[in-house]
């Protein structure tokens, strides 16, 4: 499993860490999907948030 880099754990600026983490997350999820994996398999690894319709549907 790919190891995630904690924000602030490197010598980079906070912005660099955040944008790099965003790309790493995107890449890891892309590779998982490309192998036929499902988003829900990753629910413990990434904090997915799903917006709801205003009605709460």
């Amino acid at each position: 499993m790919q190891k995630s880099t904690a924000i602030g754990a490197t010598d980079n600026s906070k912005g660099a860490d955040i944008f790099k983490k965003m790309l790493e997350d995107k890449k890891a999820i892309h590779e998982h999907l490309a192998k036929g994996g499902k988003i829900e398999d990753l629910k413990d690894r990434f904090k997915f948030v799903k917006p709801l319709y205003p009605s709460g549907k």
Partner: protein
Amino acid sequence: MLSPYILQENNAYSYEFVTDQEIRYAIYFLDYSYMFSDYPSIAENVFAFNIDVVSGEPSDSVTDERIGITIFEVFKIFFSKIDNVAVYVCDTLDERHLARKRKFDLWFWKFNDGSLLKEDGIAVIEGTPIYNSLLVHKSNKHWPEIVLAYNELNERAGEK
């Protein structure tokens, strides 16, 4: 008039839709609230927006406007909570990040109903430009601070 594709809710973590060309896409948001943790008044409700192919082979030769319309349908849901903030990063996997940025810019220009503000940024990290955009609702009372904090993250990205 073109309509959005039907959003499928197959799980609690993403939306999916299938195009006329049989390409299945997933749209998902990740919590990045710590992005603005240095600014407590705007720290909450910050999410990374992503769209990815689940199955099928997208072709550059096919222009499917309904994909952009569908994405903005999701934004309509997302920004029904006015305080939500979305950040989109163009991935650098295949050196096509600038083309993705242009496509996203075009979709925004075409399909934004006027309720959203977009601020673009380029974070240059170790010599590599990372194109990214911030979306915020015009009625978000904190939008000037959010844009300021976002620009600062981009401008200082190259610093050690």
